[in-house]
């Protein structure tokens, strides 16, 4: 439900980069989206199509999404594990002194023009 707001941020950032590099049309924007970032890729690309086509710079521009798997590390036993499968509790030692290593990204990786 916040995907549209995020799309507006992406458009603002891409416009700035395009201007700095003298680019008149962008053919693709590549995003890194973490598995537990709360951004739903399908919604993001849907909102993107609607908003991007209103801009000359981005008309027809594709939004490509790389999904970054979420990994959690346990402070108690030092093991890493899949966040989505096991959640906050470490499957190795059952401690909950854990923190997210990656998987929270909402990042513009690059643009293709």
């Amino acid at each position: 439900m916040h995907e549209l707001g995020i799309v507006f941020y992406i458009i603002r950032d891409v416009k700035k980069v395009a201007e700095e590099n003298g680019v008149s049309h962008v053919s693709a924007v590549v995003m890194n989206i973490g598995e537990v970032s709360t951004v739903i890729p399908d919604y993001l690309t849907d909102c993107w199509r609607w908003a991007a086509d209103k801009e000359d710079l981005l008309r027809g521009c594709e939004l490509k999404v790389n999904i970054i798997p979420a990994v959690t590390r346990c402070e108690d036993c030092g093991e890493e594990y899949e966040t989505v499968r096991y959640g906050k509790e470490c499957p190795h030692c059952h401690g909950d002194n854990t923190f997210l290593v990656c998987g929270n990204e909402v990042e513009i990786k690059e643009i293709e023009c």
Partner: protein
Amino acid sequence: MDPVKIIEIKKSVFADNDMDADLLRKELKQRGVFLLNIMSSPGSGKTTTLIRTLNLLKDRIRIAVMEADIDGDVDAVKIREATGIPSIQLHTGGMCHLDAEMTRQGLAHIDLDHTDLVILENVGNLVCPAEFDTGSCANAMILSVPEGDDKPLKYPLMFSVCDLVLINKTDVLQCFDFDMDRCRKYIRKRNPRAKVLPVSARTGDGIDAFAGWLLEKVNNWKQ
């Protein structure tokens, strides 16, 4: 056809907003204005809690309120009528949250030279407002008893960004399967530094503790 040129960006989408929010916080610090961002789901009792609290505080500090909603101005009118405190309504234009720039635009309509505390009542939603730093000096959230004690597990980000969690509607605790200790435990799991205060906006129970917390925050901010 020209070969495709790739320009690497590698930048978080939230980076600009985070920077803008930090800047806004610095400006507020310089002006001695404390901005509290209150978040919750719709119907948790934000406005009623505020009215109770503001009536306790309004003779001691100078307060203004910004109500953020997708549409309508019922909350701003309600606050103004019930407390006499200047209250403005912000419309997010369909967006599910406020960001630092929208907050800044709202603050432009408030007489900050004569204000100690600005309360921002964010859009009722437990997901999106947690992701966008508004530039506030502290975040509070209201969880009401009928919503259930498991909400910290379901909406971890919201609970992890809050300095204060108010558990509202404690007057109906007996009617619900809400375990206060379990809720506190879940909150601590997500955010050990969050303070938890049970309140009832209807009976006024616990509201003085919230008012005291706010007063202390405002005074510390001004030093």
